[in-house]
């Protein structure tokens, strides 16, 4: 999960990387006070966990407290992608001469972490790679031994950073490495990394993506994450996620329950292939295979669902266990909903028998037949 900039900067600062003095505010009056206290001009930046803020007008330079207040009034409550802006960062403006790009990510094909450096920072890295291919240099690093300072220096010089600033950029990358390892991060990126005329290095932005799978072993990171305000309003997705389910809400009229990420995605594809459209889908694979009933209840909060497609292909997740949960929920609360089953794999003989006995319907012979029946049922229900 991507941390908001101000939280990412706290991580950087804890690892000795210099960040501008700043305040987090949530009202125009606080923004004006902060700008006055920090000195002018100052920078006002929306705090949402997403990139591309500058281009969208979410980063502004203000030259008076009144302007800070007006800008804050404009930005607070505005929407940025899926997020509503509820906090702003008011920050000292740092005079500087050069802007570089540094980051640590992983390279899935090499299967190692990589240090990344480009001499030209400031724009999104995807754009940088598009406009100046080859300008982002990468150094694979051993997670066990850590980076070799000499190799990091070669990376930085090779990327075209002027020799005068090289040492400071190398030092920052080595600190960034500690930050990456200590935080169990998936990505730490500073863009831009600014160099002042006096030779000072400043992280003017921070993009830190933590690994949700690792949060349980980092108390301090957990506290940091807890501070990230719920930037999205409650959605069907977030309600399901709170109960440990993946639910994806789309814009059609068919509800899909499937097990496993690949099968769920393929089910959406096949529904579209036959001209249907999915309202919402929920996945019950992995450890959720015993929670079919809960999944159906979460899914059917979506009032747009006119037919239900249950697509099970069991391996680890036994289809008889999954089907029993689904059938329980249908019999308890959704007897009238047209439902189609496709059942294959582990436990399928028992699962098909169970559906026949308890619901009085037969599972479709193939997934494609089930998809087509679900589409027809949704159409029939609409008429």
């Amino acid at each position, binding site marked *: 999960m991507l941390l908001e900039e101000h939280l990412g900067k706290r991580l950087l600062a804890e690892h000795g990387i210099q960040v501008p003095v700043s305040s987090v505010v949530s009202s125009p009056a606080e923004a004006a006070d902060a700008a006055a206290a920090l000195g002018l001009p100052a920078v006002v930046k929306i705090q949402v966990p997403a990139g591309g803020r500058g281009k969208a007008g979410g980063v502004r330079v203000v030259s008076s407290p009144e302007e800070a207040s007006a800008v804050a009034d404009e930005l607070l409550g505005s929407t940025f992608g899926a997020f509503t802006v509820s906090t702003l960062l008011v920050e000292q403006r740092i005079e500087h001469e050069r802007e570089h790009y540094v980051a640590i990510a992983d390279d899935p094909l090499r299967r190692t972490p990589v240090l990344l450096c480009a001499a030209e920072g400031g724009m999104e890295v995807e754009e940088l790679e598009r406009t100046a291919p080859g300008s982002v240099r990468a150094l694979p690093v051993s*997670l066990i031994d850590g980076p070799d300072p000499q190799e990091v220096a070669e990376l930085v010089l090779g990327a075209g950073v002027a020799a005068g600033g090289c040492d400071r950029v190398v030092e920052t990358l080595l600190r960034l490495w500690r930050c990456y390892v200590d935080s*169990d991060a998936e990505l730490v990126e500073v863009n831009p990394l600014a160099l002042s005329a006096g030779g000072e290095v400043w992280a003017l932005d921070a993009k830190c993506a933590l690994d949700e799978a690792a949060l349980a072993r980092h108390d301090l990171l957990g506290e940091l994450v807890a501070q990230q305000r719920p930037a999205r309003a409650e959605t069907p997705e977030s309600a399901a996620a709170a109960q440990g389910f993946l639910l*994806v809400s789309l814009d059609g009229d068919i509800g899909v329950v499937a097990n496993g990420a690949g099968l769920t995605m393929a089910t959406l594809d096949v529904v579209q292939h036959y001209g249907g459209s999915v309202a919402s889908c929920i996945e019950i694979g992995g450890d959720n295979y015993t929670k079919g009933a809960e999944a159906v209840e979460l899914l059917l909060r979506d009032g747009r669902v006119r037919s239900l497609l249950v697509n099970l*292909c069991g391996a680890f997740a036994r289809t008889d266990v999954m089907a029993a949960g689904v059938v329980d929920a249908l019999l308890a609360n959704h007897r009238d909903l047209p439902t189609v089953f496709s059942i294959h794999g582990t436990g399928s003989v028992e699962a098909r028998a169970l559906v026949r006995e308890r619901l009085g319907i037969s599972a479709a012979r193939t997934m494609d037949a089930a998809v087509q029946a679900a589409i027809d049922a949704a159409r029939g229900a609409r008429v």
Partner: protein
Amino acid sequence: MSELVPAPGDGVLVQGITGRQASFWTAKMREVGTEVVAGVSPGRGGSKVDGVPVYDTVAEAVSEHGIEWSVLFTPALATAAAAVEALEAGVEHLVLLAEFVPRQDTLRILEVARQRRAVVLGPNTAGLVVPGACSLGIMPAFDREIFRPGAVGVVSRSGSLGTLVCLELVSAGLGQSAFLGVGGDAVVGTTTREALMALAGFDRTEVAVVIGEVGGTMEEDAAAAVRALGVPVVAFVAGRTAPPGRKMGHAGAIVSGGRGSAQGKVTALREAGAVVVETPSELAAAVTRAVGRRGGR
């Protein structure tokens, strides 16, 4: 191929064997002929699961049995320590089943594996199957509607979709030379390209099937190997309709910044000469046509 599937007689260890799922799947793996010779469960040494002796450490198991492979049923946060323990005890092939292994744990495991020239499948894989010979993991290898010995090599990121595809193949009268699940994480030990090349190198394989999904660049990377493979490739890429910016269940399945889209993968595979089908149900027919073309040559 020898590197990516067990050779006849290879001994298999099950780490975490006393867990409920692990003991269930140990019996299932043995049912299809897998040589499960030992299990490890710290603190449970001396007991037995399905007749298989259990040890406290991998080193003890290795000292008593010939062990070439280990299947790890360990919880996500315990997987790195267990995997490194197995590698340091000299086990050369690991199958990591756990989902939600932290990314840096995976990178650490893979670094130790590289140093020791060991093979890792996963994490977040359903495992591998050689129909008629063995199964390492949680695929329904015992189900004759889904797995039969044959000539189709299947590589899949997903266990559930892989299962469906194997079922379609058997329904069409085909069978598999092997199934390799590479796993749904963003970083995995064996890539789709490596698995594809191993399958193509297997004598029995006449056609290879690639089940990809959105996210990452493994399918594009695999496409680069298709032309020189020596066997035709039929592929399906799941997630064409997946909305961008959302993880679709697998940690690796996310389209972001225009990267990882299904369309890019489909195009790369088609340009390399693979047949890419629109739905999983079209796979079997496409495979049959590919076998026919090959046979007619």
